[in-house]
């Protein structure tokens, strides 16, 4: 048999992405997903992803991403550099982290 890399497989992989991978532990690192706020909000969101795949919502992700990127390039008013202002992180965010966004 040959191995597959379909949408279901990618969704199954993302939990590994959040959990595994070389763990960096150095002073220079701002944070990894050890930070509870990040861990909780991301994990909760990922928990919903498996259900999404069952309903075919994962189809054509890349196409939509390209469309969205094209839309952003056409609209100079939209910040393309990181999380939008609509993304809240709830309480407890460390003020020393400075500006959100990437």
């Amino acid at each position, binding site marked *: 048999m040959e191995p*597959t890399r379909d949408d279901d497989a990618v969704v199954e992989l993302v939990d590994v*992405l959040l959990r595994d991978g070389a763990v960096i532990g150095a002073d220079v690192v701002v944070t990894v997903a050890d930070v509870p706020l990040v861990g909780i909000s991301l994990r909760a969101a990922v928990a919903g992803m498996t259900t999404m795949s069952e309903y075919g919502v994962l189809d054509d992700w890349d196409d939509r991403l390209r469309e969205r990127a094209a839309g952003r390039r056409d609209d100079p008013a939209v910040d393309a*550099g990181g*999380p939008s202002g609509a993304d809240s992180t709830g309480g407890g965010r460390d003020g020393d982290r400075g500006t959100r966004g990437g």
Partner: protein
Amino acid sequence: MTGARYVYCLVDPAGNDGGDADPDRLAGTTGLDDAPVRLVGGGDDAAGVGAVVHDCESVYDTDDEARLRRWLLAHQRVVDAATEAFGAPLPVRFDTVIEGDDDAVVGWLASVADAVREGLASVAGCREYRVFVHWTADADDFEAQARESDARLADLADERNAASEGRGFLVGKQYDARLRELRRARIGELDDAAREAVAGVARSVDAGDPDELDADDGVPVASLSVLAPVDDEERLGDRLDDYVDAHPVTVRFTGPWAPYSFAPEVG
């Protein structure tokens, strides 16, 4: 914080699959929020190891599920491209950000170079494959077969049928327990056979919790992460075919992935 680098994976810039690297395979790749990615390090100042990064200002966080999905897909896409370019990388956990500029990344790479090289060597030429096994036997069929082959279960069945109501209830509990035990043993046999099937090809196997599998395809038996040479992928598939031919199971075989489950702790 002024300036940071989002780190996707660590690589051997000379290639980690036994052949030459092909850095052009990384060119034009974009990561989270379409950020352009590039290789940092790779020279003597980074002790010969490199990191695939993009420039950012902070860690990424969001409550927006759709945005998170796009980020995760982008992360995985970049690691894929890095694998095409540099061979087996050491994937880094999602949302790992190093504070500082390229020099900071290079300095850090130099400080952990030995561990990184060791980690890269452990996955050299390999990919991760995932194998999910379900037992497809019908529950009633199994019970009928077990009554034929297991004397204890057969005796308990007879005793239950002959007993009065109260005693019959108690014996019935013993019967159920014995049947459960036999089921667990059967699942264990199928699990052992699955591990044996992949062991001949794998450099390393990491067994996950099969109970995390959904039960739509049958009774969960095994959830394996397999680190195997990419050149042996066909052989791995053949061994899984043999396993499926010999046992009442279905197998879902995914990959090749970068070795996410086999990246060691670094730094």
